């Protein structure tokens, strides 16, 4: 089952920026692109664990601040020559409100 939880409003996140959501499983990075798409992925670069939420957001991708890996926000996969992926988390926008689906937590709680 999907457990949709509200995390705030889209306006809480700057365009071409990100905010973190703290969860018991670690931080989730929630991104807002220049054209107001919202994506959520683990805040943990597949390379050396860099905080992706701190990277520069361009198109639907983010560049990790530690070693410049570029991660697709849509697939969670590293772009270019690098290989690796982070978990993507489903996001839903209801008007201004943002929800993410915490599947793992939900299943554990059930």
């Amino acid at each position, binding site marked *: 089952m999907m*457990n949709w*939880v*509200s*995390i*705030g409003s889209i306006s*809480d*996140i*700057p*365009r*071409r*920026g990100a*905010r*973190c*959501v*703290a*969860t*018991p*499983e670690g*931080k989730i990075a*929630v991104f807002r*692109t*220049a*054209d107001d798409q919202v994506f959520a992925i683990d805040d943990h670069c597949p390379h*050396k*664990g*860099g*905080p992706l939420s*701190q*990277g*520069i*957001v*361009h*198109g639907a991708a983010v*560049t990790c*601040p*530690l070693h*410049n890996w*570029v991660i697709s926000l849509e697939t969670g996969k590293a772009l270019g020559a690098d290989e690796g992926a982070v978990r993507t988390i489903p996001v839903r926008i209801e008007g201004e409100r943002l929800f*993410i689906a*915490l599947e793992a*937590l*939900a299943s*554990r*709680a059930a």
Partner: protein
Amino acid sequence: MTEKLVIIGNGMAPGRMLEHLFEQAPGRYQVTIFNAEPRVNYDRIMLSPVLSGEKAFEEIIIHGDGWYIANGITLYKGHKIVAIDRAAKTVTSDHGVTEPYDKLVIATGSVPFIIPVPGHDLPGVLTYRDLDDVQAMLLAAQSRAKAVVIGGGLLGLEAAAGLNAQGMDVTVLHVMPTLMERQLDPAAGYLLQRAVEQRGIKVITRANTQAITGKGKVEQVELADGTIIPATLVVMAVGIRPNAALAKEAGIAVNRGIVVDAGMRSNDPDIYALGECAEVNGQVYGLVAPLYEMARVAASQLAGNEAAAFVHMDTPTKLKVTGIELFSLGDFAEGEDRQEIVLRDAAAGIYKRLVLRDDRIIGTVLYGETADGAWFNDLKKKQTDISQMRDTLIFGQSYQGGASLDPMAAVAALPDDAEICGCNGVCKGKITGAITAKGLTSLDDVRAHTKASASCGSCTGLVEKLMVLTIGDKYNPAAVQPMCGCTTLGHDEVRRLIKAKGLKTIPAVMQELEWTTSCGCAKCRPALNYYLVCDWPDEYADDYQSRFINERVHANIQKDGTYSVVPRMWGGVTNAAELRAIADVVDKFEIPMVKVTGGQRIDMLGIRKEDLPAVWADLGQAGFVSGQAYAKGLRTVKTCVGSDWCRFGTQDSTGLGIRIEKFMWGSWTPAKVKMAVSGCPRNCAEATCKDVGVICVDSGYEIHFAGAAGLDIKGTEVLGLVKTEDEALEHIVALTQMYREQGRYLERIYKWAKRIGIAEIKRQIMDDGEKRKAYFDRFVFSQKFAQVDPWSERVSGKDKHEFRPMASVGFAQAAE
């Protein structure tokens, strides 16, 4: 025995002639040049980019002062020759200098037509011929007022575009029904007019200027139909005529220009003429390619090769207005015996027309897309029979024979004698030959050896493709390395265009310069943000989302995602209260590591991001501000204890270091800037490996720069010695501003200096007081907006979102 060669005029043609002459007959002549303009030889074709602000005058110099010295040339700057005495074989200047000659070359160029309407001599009426005209126009443009350009030909349109780029409200008056009617057919002329108008320039065709009126200066232009156009500046660009008056007075045969034979010799066997003032076979010329051909011929003649002869050639015309692609060649009038092939693509703004006679190309007009110009030119020149490819001819070379549309293949397919550089008449074989024979690997090398792409630059792309084809990966495209994958433009071009087009936001840059991505990447965005911060300090709103995380949160990210914080300790000096405050902060926030840095600061490492504002609040209480240890900006000024304490100290090095740091903190630079001030040549502050360093000596302050002690190790260069602390500060600030304006993002000072040249930097900062002052003033202006402590701003609540999670979720459920 050396002969005396005297040249009247110092334009591009005689300059090129001398290059050839020194190559063919080194040491044969003792050369003297009289130049009515008070300067060295520069590229007149590039005056338009200077007017529009896309280039600086320094960038268009062909022969610097050093070249004249190296070749033993005596150059009289600002001397106009007023008389030639052919019997005595001497020339005399307006300053009274008389010089004997064995051979004389007249290269007096041309003078602009002035339409003799009433008011043509009012102040504010200019022509467009030389740097003085450009400078006068730039001065007039500062008023942002209205300008009228009379003449819708090549020069007039370039002048109009330049003035428009400088912010003036420009109207072009053209007497004919369409623009550039001598080079373009009406259809292309119409497209051109539309493109010019889209830039905000008004165009009035069939405009018959009747009078220029005003009280004591230009106020308006009146047309024959009664239209009145207000203007504070009128530029006449209606044409030129050969400047042959001097030759005529001396009794040399003059028709429209100075009459010369195919060997460039006048009716006096010791007197030659070349350039725009010369008339060969009844023709006078104004474009650079035939003028350079004259230079080649004259040089050969002077070197003793009497067979060298000038042959007439058609030259393609190109308009040097950024964003307008236009190419025209040959004869394109309609006629019974002619057919034409036309391609129109209205959506893409493309128009192409080929005029054929007997299955051969005799004329070409290309608008909007001109890449095939070289190929059509080649077909025309060789009189190639095109009947076999007639159906597809207009689509260009890459379309022929089912070949791929790869532009590289098109260049590869060009024959060796295809002309690549029209300005200098350089063919493909000469370029590839020089690349192979001389082992050339950079564009600048090819320019130096072949002259290809060294004049108007429009063939640069072709030359680069030839380099790739010839040497593959060994081609070092350093000069044009694109900023990143989002653009084909290099850093320098982008910086130039930001200024020239007045681009003041990142989206504007990406739109106008045709970025290929929607919002850039992690490489170009920080670079663009810096360029805009630097160029428009008062107008640009810093885009934090385009800054690297360290500059966004004003601390240094560490491998585990925590941050380190370095407060500013001016000149590396601290005290008990500051150290106590640091100790308290370390205890309170359980900061795991405290370290002394190489720049004489204290670094606290391992701070959680959420704690940063609270840490800064406590540090701020003790008077600390951000040390900007994370910035591409001024970092630290390291000092020794100097004359206050040291037995050997010659000056107050600590005081100067603190003064510099207090003056310059907060400024953003292309890459980090670290400085040091040592109180004596023992150099305890290690100033000679810094970006900028000062070594104090008894007689003053020796300023150093361009050192490195990181990836590269490099001792500094000496900028110069100044006497007072005030002068030291002014020179250092001016140097830094020059670097700020010219450096490529992430390019340290030593790399920038290597690229620009130490001598040029010294010239601008040490020798040119006016320039130095201007740099200094621009730095001071930008500091008004830069000197805000980012830590206290954030303590007061700025960018709160950066330091807090958006939400905490899941914990409650997990606890259930």
